[in-house]
């Protein structure tokens, strides 16, 4: 067959003036029912028969008609798929799940195979669901969650960039509490954010005197200067964290991570060869905007509970601030005392900045390649 005409098989669809763009998205429906802490969590997962037919041998005779018998025969394979792609956790510990039944539902866009599951969980801790069925084959696939709790019904969406959906007890206070913890955890585990914070603090106990460093004249002025820098950083990352979490701005994760590494590198280099010696708060603000996008990525991975997004956002922000305070508060007096020594000004501060600069350069290279 003529190559042109063969390829036009695929080009030709492009040529239809008004293509019938499909937009029949692949979705699954997951119902989660939470009772008391001693009660098992009950789940009903509806997976589209069309998605299953593309994933497991469902249409046994390949006649493009899936019968009830074929669906029943495929239940073991469906159970395996579900076991690999669905997990309930309480307090970070996976619950013990078992399949209790199967069925069928007819939605507007076709038939769905239903798997009924019971999960026995640890008695304490925040509940969450991790979903990942089909993500490796279809990055556009989404799970629509409906969560039934004594306090009410909430909804959520799980996707490849946010596979975990947090389930609070439905109250804004519990959501706020759990996300404060997550915020603290994220800043303390975020080595690049910590490095940036450290690099801001290292010269904050010094002042530039000509081409040399001198110790800051007094603790009060030092504390004010540090407060300005940290506040600027906090304000900036809160802004971009909020914008990105609400989906108003969505920078690519790869470039965000690389930009964060670049901000650490530039700040380290500035400590070694001071270019920006005044308006450090402005520098912290500018780079803080970038770090906020990084925090947003982590927050979205946790999954925002649909009914209390504001509480989750505020809580996570508060947690990040608390975590920062946990670093700054003990470190600042130590640095202030050390800054009185010549060693700190001549080699301790430059050495630490140099080591971090090398690490940041490595992170930048890693994140870009």
């Amino acid at each position: 067959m003529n190559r042109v005409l063969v390829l036009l098989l695929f080009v030709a669809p492009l040529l239809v003036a008004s293509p019938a763009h499909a937009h029949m998205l692949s979705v699954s429906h997951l119902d989660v029912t939470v009772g008391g802490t001693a009660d098992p969590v009950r789940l009903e997962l509806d997976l589209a028969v069309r998605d299953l037919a593309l994933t497991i041998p469902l249409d046994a005779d390949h006649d493009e008609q899936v019968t009830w018998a074929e669906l029943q025969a495929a239940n073991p394979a469906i159970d395996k798929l579900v076991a690999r792609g669905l997990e309930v956790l309480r307090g970070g510990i996976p619950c013990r799940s078992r399949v209790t039944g199967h069925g069928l539902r007819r939605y507007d866009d076709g038939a769905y195979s239903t798997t009924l599951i019971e999960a026995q969980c640890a008695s304490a801790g925040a509940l969450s669901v991790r979903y990942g069925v089909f993500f490796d084959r279809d990055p556009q696939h989404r799970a629509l969650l409906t969560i039934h709790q004594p306090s009410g019904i909430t909804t959520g969406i799980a996707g490849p960039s946010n596979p975990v959906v947090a389930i609070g007890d439905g109250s804004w206070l519990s959501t706020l509490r759990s996300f404060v913890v997550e915020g603290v955890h994220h800043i303390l585990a975020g080595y690049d954010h910590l490095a940036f914070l450290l690099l801001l603090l290292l010269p904050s106990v010094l002042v530039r005197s000509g081409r040399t460093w001198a110790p800051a004249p007094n603790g009060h002025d030092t504390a004010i200067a540090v407060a300005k820098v940290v506040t600027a950083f906090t304000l900036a990352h809160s802004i971009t964290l909020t914008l990105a979490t609400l989906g108003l701005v969505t920078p690519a994760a790869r470039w965000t991570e690389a930009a964060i590494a670049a901000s650490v590198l530039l700040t380290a280099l500035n400590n070694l060869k001071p270019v920006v010696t005044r308006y450090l708060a402005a520098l912290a603000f500018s780079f803080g905007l970038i770090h906020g996008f990084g925090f947003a990525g982590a927050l979205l991975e946790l999954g925002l509970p649909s009914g209390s997004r504001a509480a989750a956002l505020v809580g996570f922000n508060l947690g990040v601030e608390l975590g920062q305070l946990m670093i700054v508060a003990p470190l600042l007096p130590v640095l202030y005392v050390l800054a009185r020594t010549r060693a700190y000004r001549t080699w301790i501060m430059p050495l630490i900045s140099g080591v971090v600069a090398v690490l940041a350069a490595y992170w930048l290279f890693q994140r870009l390649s």
Partner: protein
Amino acid sequence: MARWFTGLLLSLAMVSAHAARPVLVRNAAADSVVEHLPRGYSDLEPRGGTLGGGANLATVEKLLSVSQRTGDARLASRAEALWLALPAQVRATTRALEVYSFIVQHRHDFAASLKILDRVLRAEHYNADAILARAQINLVLGRLREARGDCGQLALGIDVPSALVCVAAFSERTGEYAQARSLVERWLAEPSSNPSYRRYMLITRGEIAARSGESDPDTWFRQALALDPEDVRSLAAYARYLNHAHRFADTRTLLATAPRTDALQLQESLAALALKSSDSADLTRRLAARYALAHELGTVPEMRDEAELLLATGKTVAALALAERNFETQRDYEDVDVLQRAAQAAKSPGALKRVDDWARGESLDLRKAGGKP
């Protein structure tokens, strides 16, 4: 049914984007059919633990082909995931790049698609398929000068069949219906064993007939459907024509057993609204819920179609806003048409001026091209 009531139902649909739970069926007759899979699925079903056809470029093309025919976007999404998993040396081939340009175009990322085609053409200056694809994207984007240049390149001897198709599409878009008709009929007169490509040319002929006021456009659409009665592209084009001709009852008949894709549901909803059918509210509510779900999931439904639904249900301001947003990225015949109708309904001369300015810049006579001044 009163527009306000339909509008209220649509607002409720937006709130209830998460589908209400259907009844759970625990038992059925063993041989009862729970799902009719679209034609072509059997080639894609896994066999022996691996994807039907294997993880290769041919399978990607099969997924895309069935996706286009059936309107099932999950297949295009799977095609993209599979393409990205191909070995680097395969992805770098011309054929693979052409396929990928089509994949990203499917997501309306026309800029990315053009970049990929440019890459193909840097390696193969006289690649007729890539030039033709680029011409079509330029037509959709409303870059008529660039499209004319692409067709000119093909007509200068690179590839005659491609040139015929290109110039016919360009002529149709610019309202040169006599020329377009002649070119398409010349192509149709040549025997072709490629039903998919022939289907496209028959649809084009039907659209030319409809836009130029010929007496029987149906003949061409029916011939296209005779090749494949289930092809959603043919069904959508024919339904659009029938609705435009106010033959709403014929639209309902045509789509009575059609697949439930968004594009076909739109045409059915528009027909039902025009006929004031008892199921019009239900149809429009379900379609609005699908659009709302798409928004909630962070994808963008076809903005032009969503604007059409809003216009038909009396939400003229929202329709105009969406039509204007759509116009920023798509300026094909239907995109311009819905914007003009929305602008007139919302009494917004500013929006009409924007269309006129664009048309003037591209030397397009909107009166000839079917546009309304």
